């Protein structure tokens, strides 16, 4: 009984959220949710669709043609050329795109390489597909960069894909073009798929020459039969609750993913597809506004961590709305683990953070803090953390 799911775990992030719900005064830096509401223009687009009575029926399985057409336009502005009719599927968020992609390209027992640390749910989806997640450590000393040697060593005859999140959750790393091309070279050599989850690509805090810039392997024409790129509207447009995203790749791959997508959800929710249309039509300024705000909050959280430099060290994130500080001095030394640290913060001062172990073995000794929260929440959370540390 329950063989397929026996090795699945409820994500540690969700476990922390359940624990945090016991304390009504909790400030949660755990959830990966932007503090903003969905922009008004997007809501208006949805209202219009509701009034026109166009949201009650299924769309074509790959999604509304007008949305896919706009996605193609938006991709072409980022130097990625995909046919909206055959190479783009609108999905119920990124996680459905990931699930459908992995189910389509793998066979049971296949291995998929994922960075360590990276987003918690990757592991679960890979296990659900009957495959084996293989954590490949990132190089913390080099700002959580890919360690290509480690990747080389991790590849076996069973390896089917290299799966990563760029920019990376929880470290906020933007992988460089050279690092990504290094992965692509390995993929070519060993005939592997490259699954690139790029849901944070719009939050980039580096704009100086020489600083890392966002680059996608989907921009390389020669890789189009290897790269499966995933995007979600959740983060960029403050639409986490709408559950809408998309996947694009070469026709030969999308054709197969579509079969799984059809089995899983038939089509993405139509009302959310209209919201996504609104986002692409009118959301440019909102993305800019969110990006500026997150940059301010990143600077704030870094300055608050600087004051606690006897307890934390950190690598300044260049993207996302997460920071991944390392705990270097812990008040509960006997039971040290990132889990225990997170539970202590929650139980003692009602601040929720995600234990680093949630993101892979290399994440131990770290915690993930979200600066998607308002400045007020960030300040209050740190005031509480400082108090408990002062009391030591």
């Amino acid at each position, binding site marked *: 009984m329950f063989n397929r799911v026996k090795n699945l775990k409820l994500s540690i992030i969700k476990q922390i959220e359940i624990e945090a719900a016991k304390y009504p005064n909790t400030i949660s830096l755990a959830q990966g949710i932007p503090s903003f509401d969905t922009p008004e223009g997007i809501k208006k687009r949805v209202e219009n669709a509701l009034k026109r009575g166009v949201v009650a029926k299924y769309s074509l399985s790959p999604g509304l043609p007008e949305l896919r057409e706009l996605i193609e336009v938006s991709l072409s502005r980022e130097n990625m050329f995909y046919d909206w009719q055959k190479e783009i599927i609108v999905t119920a968020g990124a996680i459905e795109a990931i699930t459908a992609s992995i189910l389509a390209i793998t066979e049971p027992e296949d291995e998929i390489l994922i960075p360590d640390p990276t987003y918690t749910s990757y592991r679960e989806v890979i296990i659900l597909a009957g495959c084996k997640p293989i954590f490949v450590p990132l190089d913390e000393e080099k700002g959580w960069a890919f360690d290509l040697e480690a990747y080389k060593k991790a590849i076996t005859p069973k390896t089917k894909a290299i799966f990563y999140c760029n920019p990376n959750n929880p470290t906020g790393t933007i992988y460089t073009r050279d690092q990504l091309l290094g992965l692509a070279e390995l993929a070519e050599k060993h005939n592997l798929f490259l699954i690139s989850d790029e849901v944070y690509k719009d939050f980039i805090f580096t704009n100086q020459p020489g600083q890392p810039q966002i680059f996608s392997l989907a921009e390389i024409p020669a*890789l189009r039969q290897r790269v499966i790129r995933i995007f979600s509207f959740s983060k960029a447009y403050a639409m986490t609750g709408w559950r809408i995203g998309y996947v694009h790749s070469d026709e030969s791959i999308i054709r197969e993913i579509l079969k799984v997508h059809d089995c899983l959800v038939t089509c993405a929710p139509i009302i959310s597809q209209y919201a996504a249309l609104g986002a692409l039509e009118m959301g440019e300024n909102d993305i800019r506004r969110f990006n500026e705000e997150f940059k301010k909050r990143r600077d704030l959280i870094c300055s608050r961590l600087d004051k606690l430099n006897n307890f934390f060290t950190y690598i300044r994130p260049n993207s996302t709305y997460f920071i991944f500080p390392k705990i270097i001095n812990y008040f509960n030394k006997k039971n040290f683990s990132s889990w225990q640290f997170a539970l202590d913060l929650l139980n003692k001062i009602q601040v929720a953070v995600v234990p680093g172990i949630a993101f892979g073995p290399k994440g131990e000794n770290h915690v993930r803090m979200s600066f998607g929260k308002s400045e007020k929440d960030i300040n209050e959370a740190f005031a509480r953390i400082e108090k408990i540390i002062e009391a030591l």
Partner: protein
Amino acid sequence: MKIVFKKILQYYLKYIVKIILLIHRPFIIAIAGSSNKIFAKEKIISLLKEKGIDAYSNPKSFNTEIGLPLAILDLPSGYNSYADWLSTVLKAPIQIFKINFPKILVLELGISSPADMKFLLSIIKPDIGVITQITSRYLESFKNIGELLAEYEYFIKKMPKESLLVLNYDNLFIRKMANINKNKVLFFGFSDKADWQGKLLKKDAFGQKILIRHGEKKEEYNLKKYGEHHIYSLLISLIVKEYVSKKEV
């Protein structure tokens, strides 16, 4: 309140645009159809610019009763902000005195409910009218397919006498509409009966290789974009480029 504001805005922008078009008299290429308008528009602009022809289109798909005037005025939408709309409203009349008004405008015409086309064509008089494709998209806002098709029939009917119609031969609905008026019509499509025929020769990692046949002339093109709709866009833009060059706009 919002409906009243929208109506006032719609007519305010319409009449300012009519004055501008009367003064500057640009050559207008109007693109209608259920899909592929934006790609056709981009390709036309790109080919005309390659030839050094001064053409303009709004990068966004502004193609509705308010969007079309904004595209001509080269002004942003206020979307949901009254303050932003106020700024647009104040800037609109200033555009009348714009010195370097483009010689050619490439405009999308979007229809999502009955009589939309009538309103859009009360603003502009196209010199070239293109229908890219007609599908069931937006059908939900019409009583039936007949009502949707009537919008495109109106488009063809209202084309000025000297204008050119560029129509998709592969679409039976569009093909049947061609006889509605006596304008010059050029068909594009994959069919060998089209005046300008496209054929996909090869698709690989670097794009599509296309053979274009027009009369006795045959030429190969490479597109880095994928999909039949880009072959249609190429055909449309080649027809437009040749016509505009001959007319010496």
